[in-house]
């Protein structure tokens, strides 16, 4: 069992990992397996970071389990264990409903090619060319081309096709048509590989299995342990300060946001002029709003699909999607099949959101706006599930302020930073010896798969340092 305070931690470790998001958990696991002594610290009472859940009146709500790419299977087998891999199952019914089209898809290359050819009348050769182009994209490729330019090259003037291709990715990582085409290509190809997958048993089961694996590998875990400061001396990491205690460490891997890590935990003075310059163009991504709906025990709802991308906005519009009054939202439906043995239905509506729009409200306005958002979601959902309002016995909303409170991330960012954050994150240890950053950055390193893979990449850097 993880300790629920810093008290039991030893005085010194090879590695301290700050934060237990999927990136932090994975770095901790890799480094422990490589033979290092690892301490994992989390300020919340629960591990997982954004990969989290909460319980209300018998309902279990998953916060970020809407879908991830097939690549999670291989990644979980290699960096966690086979049992975790074996719990990854496909979500087969992905629904789009908007004024431009209504369709159901398995969200993979074959089905998308079929849909683009028959429904959208795009020539087969064009579709093939497009897939070949995005499949071949690498993060070190030229990034001057935007996603808009990519779409215009292959599907000029086709706002309907652009919407089909972009909208799910905008929900998945907050990117839009102005972001580099390579970030789009990498993430989209990951999904198109085999479709959308989920974790059978829910986030609580996954994090439970990961916790067990970490403990088997000898990681010391302390929750309710807020790191106040990373102690740096002469350009080198010495340890961390937690609850008045100093814990010595040869390396620190921070899973706090990149800006939190540099500005709040390490302190900007620890970095070179050059590094500070490179930080300037780093932009944190948008945050999210969610509405959680719990269906009464004994009630059932019809299977209307697993993931519904719905909008009554005339065209894809990333700004519209961020608006507090957006008409665009995804509905994730959790049927009893998602959590075998737990006979409940829950629905989570997710929207992209701006931190400022919510942080600027007075507390009365804030409560009212949350209520109005719940209301809008219910009205929207009634179109697909008539009578849903009366079937629910739990309704609750989360806003960017909620995400900020639980993760401490700058402006409650849901998906780390835009592209520029990746290089800064990768270079941090070149500026302060022994200091590493892991966690959503650069669009491509976000999402469950991105965060876990990035955890492996950073663990490799930290291991190289520890053995040098």
């Amino acid at each position, binding site marked *: 069992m993880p300790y629920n305070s810093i008290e039991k931690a030893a005085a010194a470790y090879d590695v301290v990992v700050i934060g237990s998001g999927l990136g932090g958990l994975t770095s901790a696991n890799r480094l422990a397996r490589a*033979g290092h002594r690892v301490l994992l610290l989390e300020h919340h009472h629960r591990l997982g970071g954004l990969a989290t859940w909460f319980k209300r009146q018998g309902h279990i709500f998953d916060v970020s389990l809407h879908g991830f790419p097939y690549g999670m299977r291989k990644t979980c087998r*290699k960096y966690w264990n086979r049992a975790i891999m074996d719990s990854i199952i496909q979500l087969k019914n992905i629904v789009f409903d908007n004024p431009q089209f209504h369709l159901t898809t398995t969200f993979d290359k074959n089905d998308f090619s079929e849909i683009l050819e028959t429904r959208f009348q795009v020539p087969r050769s064009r579709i093939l060319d497009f897939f070949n182009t995005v499949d071949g994209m690498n993060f070190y490729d030229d990034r001057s081309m935007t996603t808009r330019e990519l779409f215009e090259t292959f599907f000029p003037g086709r706002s309907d096709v652009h919407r089909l291709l972009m909208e799910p990715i905008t929900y998945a990582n907050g990117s839009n048509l102005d972001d580099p085409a390579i970030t789009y290509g990498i993430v989209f190809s990951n999904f198109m590989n085999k479709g959308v997958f989920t974790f059978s048993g829910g986030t609580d089961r996954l994090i439970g299995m990961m916790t067990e694996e970490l403990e088997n590998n000898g990681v010391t875990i302390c929750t309710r342990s807020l790191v106040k400061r990373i102690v740096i001396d002469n350009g080198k990491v010495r340890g961390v300060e937690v609850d008045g205690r100093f814990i010595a460490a040869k390396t620190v891997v921070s899973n706090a946001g990149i800006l939190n890590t540099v500005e709040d935990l390490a302190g900007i003075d620890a970095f070179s002029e050059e590094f500070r310059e490179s930080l300037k163009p780093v932009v944190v991504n948008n945050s999210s709003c969610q509405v959680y709906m719990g269906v009464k025990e004994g009630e059932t709802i019809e299977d209307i699909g697993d993931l519904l991308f719905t909008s009554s906005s005339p065209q894809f519009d990333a700004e519209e999607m961020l608006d507090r009054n957006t008409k665009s939202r995804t509905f994730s439906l959790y049927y009893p099949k998602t959590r075998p043995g737990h006979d409940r239905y829950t629905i989570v509506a997710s929207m992209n959101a701006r931190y400022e729009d919510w942080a600027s409200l007075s507390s009365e306005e804030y409560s009212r706006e949350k209520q109005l958002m719940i209301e809008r979601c219910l009205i929207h959902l009634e179109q697909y599930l008539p009578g849903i309002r009366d079937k629910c016995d739990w309704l609750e909303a989360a806003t960017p302020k909620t995400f900020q409170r639980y993760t401490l991330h700058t402006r409650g960012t849901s998906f780390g930073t835009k592209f520029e954050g990746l290089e800064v994150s990768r270079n941090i240890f070149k500026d302060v010896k022994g200091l590493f950053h892991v966690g959503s950055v650069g669009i491509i390193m976000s999402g469950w798969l991105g965060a876990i*893979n990035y955890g492996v*990449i950073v663990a*490799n850097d930290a291991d*190289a340092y520890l*053995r040098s």
Partner: protein
Amino acid sequence: MNKEEIRDVILEIIQDIDEDADISDLQSDLPLRDQLDLDSMDFLDIVMELRKRYKLQIPEADYPELASLDSCVAYLEPRLKDS
């Protein structure tokens, strides 16, 4: 280690990474990536394992040297001669 031993180590590490990898008729001069469905993460695993076993540090710039079995052996032989 000699060439043959290095070759065996590489194959053993690949097999650890992917139990299902069919290494029986691998062409040693062709890219591993194309024959075994290895991705960049798999190469990172090889690098990390070599470091763990032999304290060998392979800089990122040298990763392309690990492309085929032959190039792996050529790159590693002088570096592992005392291991």
